[in-house]
């Protein structure tokens, strides 16, 4: 890359000299980076580094641009429409966003709570909207009982969810299950404290 660039620069220089008229070197590249707001309206940040220079983008639709070696420039703000126009095919190929569901269980049991039973069809319809879906099912318990007992209970809960989804027609191989026992409570408690919000299975559809 480097020797080629030097060669091109030399050619350009020779060309300029012959033509007498001095014109700026043609752009060797055209790179554009645009930071976008998320669906919830919040915007993250990007650091852009080029040839020892750095810019931080942290506002919606802020841009950085490189058209000449050694020149990292502020490309100004684009509008949402301009981004949609210029990046339509890439944006249009974005996979669906992963979605997370939480189902709750009765005390010391792999039976769903009544409210969670009603959630299951929603999970099914979310899965139907994902191409080549992957479903990650992770079971949890509250801190009543031993670590070992809760590892087994959490896995049983996760397997119960998988069985329910398989029954609805989701291929079993699309679903992975794991149990994390009482290690990752949603609500921190002392050991041996019963906490319904920790008796749960988290399901990620991606």
């Amino acid at each position, binding site marked *: 890359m480097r020797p080629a660039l030097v060669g091109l620069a030399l050619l350009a220089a020779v060309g300029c000299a012959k033509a007498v008229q001095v014109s700026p070197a043609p752009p060797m590249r055209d790179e554009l980076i645009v930071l976008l707001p998320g669906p919830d309206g919040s915007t*993250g940040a990007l*650091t852009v*580094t080029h040839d020892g220079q750095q810019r931080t983008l942290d506002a919606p639709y802020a841009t950085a641009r490189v058209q000449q070696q050694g020149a990292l420039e502020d490309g100004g703000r684009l509008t949402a429409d301009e981004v949609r126009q210029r990046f339509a095919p890439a944006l249009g*190929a974005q996979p669906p966003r992963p979605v997370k569901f939480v189902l709750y269980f009765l005390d010391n049991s792999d039976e769903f709570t009544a409210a969670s039973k009603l959630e299951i069809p929603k999970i099914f319809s979310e899965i139907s909207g994902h191409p080549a879906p992957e479903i990650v099912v992770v079971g949890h318990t509250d801190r009543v009982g031993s670590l070992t007992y809760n590892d087994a209970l959490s896995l049983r809960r996760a397997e119960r969810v998988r069985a329910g989804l398989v029954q609805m027609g989701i291929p079993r191989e699309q679903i992975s299950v794991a149990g994390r026992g009482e290690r990752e409570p949603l609500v921190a408690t002392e050991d041996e404290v019963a906490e319904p919000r920790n008796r749960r299975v988290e399901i*990620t559809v991606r």
Partner: protein
Amino acid sequence: MRYGFWGLAAVALLVTAGFASADEVGRVKVVKGAVTIERAGSSLPATVGMKLQEGDVIATGRDGSAGVTFNDDSLLSIGPDSALAIDRFAFDTTTHAGRFDTSLRRGTLSAVSGKIAKQSPDAMKVRTPSTILGVRGTEFVVRAVPVAP
């Protein structure tokens, strides 16, 4: 760390058990037009559901575009005449620590960063022919078009 090494090791075992093989870093979710995966010197036609590995290069033709969901829930998609290399992907499903390096060799990229970038800013990097992007979250687009001299 509250549970010590063996606790973490046990969690790691529980979490990795039943998951896809360690080689898989993500899956192709969207394929439109001509899309190929370059792997170990050969070029495979991309299909929806295809598992990707470190070192793969996703390339599109003039009418092509493609989208990939990575194991940390990052979403990367490319437009026509594009090539994206997966240089490095390491993700700990327990701690969410990892490293994610890709290179947009040419074309357009749309990115939504996932758990790796959320857990540690700058653990996700996207290179273009001229720049290095440190990703602190979350959504951005990039165009890297070579200009004919």
